[in-house]
C-alpha cells in the first residue's frame, strides 16, 4: 500500500515537473539578431501593416496622436478584459528600456523581458511568422515615436486566467511555425499570405475561436461572432465574400464596398492602415483571399 502511494506521488511530481517545463516561456536564441541594425523608414511600413497603433493608441485619439502609443484601449473577451499597455519608447512607463531581443521575444514568442507569458490578446501567434528583418526595422521605428508617461493599466482577468503560466499550455496548442495556406506558387500570393497571416493578422477577428480561445484553423477566415458582443464578423473565403479581387483591393483602399456602402466599426482602422500601403500590397491580399478554399479547410 505504501509502495503504491509512493509511486503515485512520484508520478505526480514527475507530471508536475513535465508540465512546468512544457509551459515554460520559450525565448528566441540569443544570437538570432546579432549584427542586425534597423531601418526606421522600412519599419514604418511594417508598423502600418501590422496595425500596432490601432490597438495601442490612447482611446479616442485621432490623427497624429495615434502615434503616441500610450495604451489604454480595452478589449473584452470570454476570459476577461485586456487593456493595451504603453509601448511608447518611454523608459519607465513604456518599453524604452527594452533591447531588441526583448522586443523580438515579445512580438514573436509572446514572452516579456521578465520571462512571463503575454496574453494572446496580443496577436503574437500571427507575428511569430514575421521576418526577422521586419521585426528589427519595426523596433527601430518604434524608438523614433513620441514617449508617453501614461502607466499601463492592469488587465481585468479573473482566476484562473490570471495565472500567466497557463498561457504556456495554451501556446503548446495554438502556436505553430506553419503557415495556414501551405502552397503559395507565386510572389504575389506569398506577399498576400505574409500580410494576411502575419502582419495584418486578419485571422484574429475573421476566424472562429474554440472554447479555449484559440483560432479554429480548420475554419480559417470563415467569420466569427463579434468579440464585443454585437453582430458578427464576416467570412472572407470565396463562398462567403463574392467580391472580385479588384473590389477587395478597392475596399482596402477606400472603405467602399461594391455597393458603395462605407466601412464602419473596427474595419475603419484597418482600411486607414491599408490605404497607406502600396497598391500591390492590397492586390496581394485580394489575391490571397480569392485563393482560399471555400469553407476554410486547407489541404
Amino acid at each position, binding site marked *: 500500500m505504501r509502495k503504491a502511494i509512493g509511486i503515485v506521488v512520484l508520478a505526480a511530481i514527475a507530471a508536475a515537473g513535465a508540465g512546468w517545463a512544457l509551459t515554460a516561456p520559450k525565448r528566441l536564441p540569443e544570437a538570432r539578431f546579432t549584427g542586425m541594425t534597423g531601418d526606421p523608414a522600412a519599419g514604418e511600413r511594417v508598423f502600418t501593416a501590422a496595425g500596432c497603433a490601432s490597438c495601442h493608441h490612447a482611446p479616442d485619439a485621432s490623427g497624429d496622436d495615434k502615434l503616441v502609443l500610450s495604451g489604454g484601449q480595452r478589449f473584452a473577451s470570454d476570459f476577461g478584459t485586456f487593456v493595451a499597455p504603453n509601448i511608447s519608447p518611454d523608459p519607465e512607463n513604456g518599453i524604452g528600456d527594452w533591447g531588441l531581443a526583448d522586443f523580438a521575444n515579445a512580438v514573436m514568442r509572446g514572452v516579456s523581458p521578465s520571462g512571463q507569458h503575454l496574453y494572446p490578446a496580443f496577436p503574437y501567434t500571427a507575428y511569430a511568422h514575421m521576418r526577422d528583418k521586419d521585426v528589427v526595422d519595426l523596433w527601430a521605428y518604434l524608438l523614433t515615436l513620441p514617449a508617453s508617461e501614461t502607466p499601463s493599466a492592469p488587465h481585468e482577468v479573473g482566476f484562473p486566467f490570471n495565472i500567466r503560466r497557463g498561457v504556456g499550455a495554451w501556446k503548446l496548442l495554438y502556436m505553430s511555425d506553419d503557415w495556414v495556406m501551405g502552397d503559395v506558387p507565386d510572389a504575389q500570393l506569398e506577399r498576400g499570405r505574409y500580410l494576411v497571416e502575419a502582419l495584418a493578422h486578419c485571422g484574429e477577428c475573421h476566424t472562429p475561436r474554440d472554447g479555449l480561445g484559440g483560432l479554429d484553423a480548420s475554419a480559417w477566415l470563415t467569420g466569427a461572432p*463579434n468579440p464585443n458582443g*454585437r*453582430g*458578427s464578423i464576416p467570412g472572407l473565403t470565396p463562398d462567403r465574400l463574392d467580391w472580385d479581387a*479588384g473590389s477587395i483591393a*478597392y475596399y482596402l*483602399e*477606400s*472603405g*467602399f464596398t461594391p*455597393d*458603395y*456602402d*462605407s*466601412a*464602419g*466599426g473596427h474595419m*475603419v482602422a484597418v*482600411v*486607414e492602415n491599408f*490605404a497607406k500601403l502600396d497598391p500591390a500590397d492590397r492586390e496581394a491580399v485580394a489575391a490571397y483571399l480569392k485563393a482560399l478554399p471555400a469553407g476554410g479547410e486547407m489541404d
Partner: protein
Amino acid sequence: MTRLLTAVTALSLGLSGAAIAQDYSGQLKARQGQFRILAINLGTLGDIAQGKTEYDAEAAQAAADSLVAVSMIHQQPLWPEGSSEMDMDGTRAKAEIWDDWEDFGSKWSALGEAATAMQTAAAGGAEAIGPAMGALGGACKACHDSYRAPRN
C-alpha cells in the same frame, strides 16, 4: 362623479400617450434614402476611379453635384430624439448621436467638404477623382465609426 371621470380620462390619456410610440418611419426612410442617393452617386465616381467605366465628364460632374446637394440637406429634422437603434427597430443610428450632436453635425459637414472637393476633381478625369473618392470614403467612415451600430 365628474372629478372621478376627469381623473380617469386624464390618466388614460397620459398612459396612452406613453403606449403609442412615436412613428418615425418617415424620418428613417428619409435619412436612409439620402445615404442611398449618396451610394448611387459615389458608384458613378468610384467606378470611374477604379477604371470599371470610361470617364464621362458630364456624368461625373452631375454625380459630384448630387453629393453636394445631399450634404446640404438640413439634418436636424431627420434625427428626432427617440429614433435611435435603442428606441426602435429598422435603424442603426446609435444613441451617441444625441449625446454628441455637435460632433455628429461636424462629421456631416466634413462630408460636405469632401463632396465640394469632388466637384472640382470631377473635371480632372480618373486620376483626380481617385484621391477625392478617398477623401469621401474617409468622411463616411469617420461618422460610421462613431455613430452607426453593427449590422445585427
